[in-house]
């Protein structure tokens, strides 16, 4: 199974995603320059965190027009796996691959800290290996992670299992205090109807080694790998 990490001008967690896939999970991975027009040969694309185009205007607004994005959209429509982390999530939203929008944290400040996540849907390609009730400890680092969507869409998403991760306390309770950015319904990550595109604000690639304070991010990547192997 081969991963591709898309590099936009201003991406800066590309390196970290690449590192965790290659050095920790020991899977083949390559960088994909944003001007690439083809993504053939890749089984899962990662849109990494960072500040594509400086996050000018709105996060992800300019990057979503990069040439590579047509190929990403096309791959997603074929059912290929796409994972957007932080800025990558924002790009997927701007590209219309996921519903909703992300805007300023209610604190109006950037926040870099560990958060805890509960999983609402364990039957996506990204969450298949999660044990029931497991709380993941994964850090965030963003200034615009406040998820917003209109109430009807939210209801539809809930019914279809598109809400994947929610911010919670270490004990797994989705309280207002556990919400680091004001997101609607403590939402930290969502997927599309077909469940093959996931976007999340927390950084699983930063929680891949004990030295970094948590290895809880690995299960997301391992689930992807398992899903791919099972579906062959």
């Amino acid at each position, binding site marked *: 199974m081969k991963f591709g990490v898309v590099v936009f001008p201003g991406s800066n967690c590309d390196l970290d995603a690449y590192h965790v896939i290659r050095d920790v999970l020991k899977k083949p991975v390559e960088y994909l320059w944003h001007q690439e027009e083809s993504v053939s040969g890749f089984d899962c694309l990662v849109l990494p965190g960072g500040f594509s185009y400086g996050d000018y*205007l*709105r996060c992800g*607004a*300019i990057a979503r*027009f990069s040439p590579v994005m047509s190929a990403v959209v096309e791959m997603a429509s074929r059912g290929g796996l796409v994972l957007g982390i932080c800025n990558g999530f924002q790009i997927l*939203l*701007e590209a219309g691959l996921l*519903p*909703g*929008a992300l*805007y*300023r*944290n*209610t*604190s*109006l400040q950037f926040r870099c800290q560990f958060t805890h996540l509960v999983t609402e849907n364990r039957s996506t390609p990204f969450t298949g290996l999660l044990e029931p009730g497991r709380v993941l400890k994964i850090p965030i680092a963003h200034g615009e992670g*406040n998820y*917003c*969507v*209109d109430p009807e869409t939210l209801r539809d998403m809930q019914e279809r299992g598109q809400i994947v991760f929610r911010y919670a306390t270490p004990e797994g309770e989705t309280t207002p205090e556990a919400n680091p950015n*004001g997101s609607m319904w403590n939402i930290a990550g969502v997927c599309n109807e077909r469940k093959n595109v996931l976007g999340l604000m927390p950084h699983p690639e930063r929680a891949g080694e004990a030295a970094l304070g948590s290895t809880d991010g690995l299960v997301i990547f391992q689930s992807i790998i398992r899903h791919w192997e099972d579906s062959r």
Partner: protein
Amino acid sequence: MWKATIKVMLKKSVLDPQGQAVQKALHALGYQNVPDVRIGKYLEVKVALADRESAAAQVREMCERLLANMVIEDYTFELTEA
């Protein structure tokens, strides 16, 4: 040549944390008589086109494609000859 002045605002239904923070700050400075603050973006975009119609059409298109995020924002604009 036309100059479009574009205002992009969060939809009424979307909470505006920045507007609220500024309102609070204004109250703290003693301006208690400010019941509402909303904050958005203001853009000045020049467009080299001759007629107003096509300039307006292009501005609308640029707003919907890039300048505003229609999921959470609304936009309005005015054109003046430049």
